[in-house]
């Protein structure tokens, strides 16, 4: 057993306890980690308020998984410090493990065991008696719509079912802080939607969640605050709305009819937008100052110029726009130095 020497603070049976009153559930300062020449993390600072969801958004290889591994005691940081649920991730690692749940990118369940056996095993390893662990396992299977498959070996499960079981395994003790590392990567849209609903339910119950994702839509939907991470650094942090405000306001997009008079269209929209309209492959884009009246003004102006229009929309900037403007590259690019062989 690891020694817990040097630990301060209130303790029960010699173990430090999570600080009940603390408002910050996760805080990291200057976390660095290198693998040989590769600097996976070059000084990450993050705070997550109790009961909120932080979306850690970044491309493959940005350092998201490494950061989660540091916060869940799987990896010792080279520098910096971090506390989760009031416990230091290095000094109090053994005690901290009782307060966190982790579901990884790769569904970490035993294929040869049944769903119920998996959950019962994890519950017992958290120190619960067998009967209690089994009862909790059933409860979670029911909640995640897996009760029918409870006694089937996991190798017969679909990808979505495995992810739900993996998530259930992270919840057997209702940990106050939950880490989900790319929970929906590789899932079909329907399973993804199902998993999102499950995650939203957890958050509604007050769980603090740190979620990594490379899907902007996912961060937008689930996270209260988003930290954009690239090359081992947090390059922007804020709510989705704040981040979007950084790249400007509304955008008007007009899809022209084939054969439409493009110069005339550009001229017609020049008076409507707040900047110069640009034309890309028959799609006209221009920033606009306010929503009211914009579409009517654009259509009137285009129709007066005799330009045929297929479609016209007014939209807020997406996180894709945010990512592109912050990093100079899209969210799906990038190489992954940490990827598995």
């Amino acid at each position, binding site marked *: 057993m*690891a020694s817990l020497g040097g630990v301060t603070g209130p303790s029960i049976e010699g173990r430090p306890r999570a600080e009940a009153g603390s408002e910050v559930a996760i805080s990291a300062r200057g976390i660095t980690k290198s693998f040989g020449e590769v600097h996976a993390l070059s000084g990450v600072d993050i705070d997550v308020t109790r009961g909120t969801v932080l979306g850690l958004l970044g491309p493959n290889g940005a350092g998201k*998984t490494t950061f989660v591994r540091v916060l869940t005691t799987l990896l010792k940081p080279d520098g910096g410090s971090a506390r989760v649920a009031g416990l230091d991730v290095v000094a109090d690692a053994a005690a901290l*493990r009782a307060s966190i749940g*982790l579901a990884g990118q790769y569904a*970490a369940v*035993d294929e040869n065991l049944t769903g119920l056996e998996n959950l019962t095993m994890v519950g017992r390893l*958290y*120190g619960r008696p067998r009967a209690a662990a089994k009862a909790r396992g059933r409860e979670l299977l029911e909640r995640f719509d897996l009760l029918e498959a409870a006694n089937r070996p996991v190798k017969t499960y679909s990808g979505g079912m495995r992810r739900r079981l993996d998530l259930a*395994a992270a919840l057997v003790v209702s940990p106050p802080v939950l880490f989900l590392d790319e929970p929906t990567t590789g899932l079909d849209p329907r399973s993804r939607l199902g998993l999102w609903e499950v995650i939203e339910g957890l958050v509604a119950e007050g769980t603090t969640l740190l979620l990594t994702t490379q899907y902007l839509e996912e961060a937008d939907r689930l996270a209260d605050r988003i930290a954009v991470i690239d090359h081992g650094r947090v390059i922007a942090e804020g709510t989705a709305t704040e981040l979007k405000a950084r790249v400007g306001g509304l955008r008007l997009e007009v899809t022209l009819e084939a054969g439409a008079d493009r110069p005339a269209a550009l001229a017609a929209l020049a008076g409507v937008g707040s900047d110069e309209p640009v034309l890309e492959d028959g799609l006209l884009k221009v920033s606009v100052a306010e929503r009211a009246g914009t579409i009517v003004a654009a259509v009137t102006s285009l129709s007066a110029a005799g330009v045929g229009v297929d479609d016209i929309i007014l939209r807020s900037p997406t996180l894709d726009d945010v990512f592109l403007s912050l990093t100079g590259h899209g969210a799906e690019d990038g190489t992954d130095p940490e990827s598995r062989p």
Partner: protein
Amino acid sequence: MRRLITDTLIIAERNLVRLPRAPDLLLAFTVQPIMFVLLFRYVFGGAIHTGYGNYADFLIPGIIVQNIAFGGFVTALGLNEDLHKGLIDRFRSLPMSRAALLGGRTLADVVTNVLSMIVLIVTGLIIGFSFHTTILDGIAGGLLLALFGYAFSWVFAFLGLIVSSPEAANSVGFIAVFPLTFVSSAFVPTQSFPAVLRAFAKVNPFTIVVNATRYLWEHGHGIAASNVLFALLWTAGILVMFAPLAVSRYRRAAAR
């Protein structure tokens, strides 16, 4: 300490409940060794002169040790798979004992090893093998083999955690086990070996454990039997060296 014991038992259970569900694995533990017994007894056995009255008596201890060695592959492969599928990440993120995953796996190996040993002894009894000593010495031999198998499981546990893939676990394991098994007294007397191989066979723990078991089952005398003490020393040495190595590797294990 209590945590270590309960967690170890939970993991051992995890590794054992799968057995009845994986008929191929069960086959590896039962039918395959029987095939080897028949092969050596009836195909090669007639041409091997051991100086023993009965080749079956010579063969059974050797084939049990060979079986323990090859059965260890399952441990190395299984742990490597756990590593790659992220299961070891999950276990390491749980508030469980750091030694329990490997302790449980190796404990489960003892059960499968003893199961195979029983199958082999029963097969042996049918083809002419017999104990020539007391029940106590018979049990002592079985115990020695089980202990040695347990120590050897830790070698495979370590191997499973250091290699890069299940395929690598397979080939590295084979390279390690092949000479230990065949350049030993497991199937043939070592007198006919060239000098270098004979020297290797003489210190090879497989030879020592096989000879000790043969002596126990042929002549008896418990711990005082020829080679028994030496075999126990080898067993303890392997355990003392590889168990801490494997656990330390597990503590730092990274799926990527």
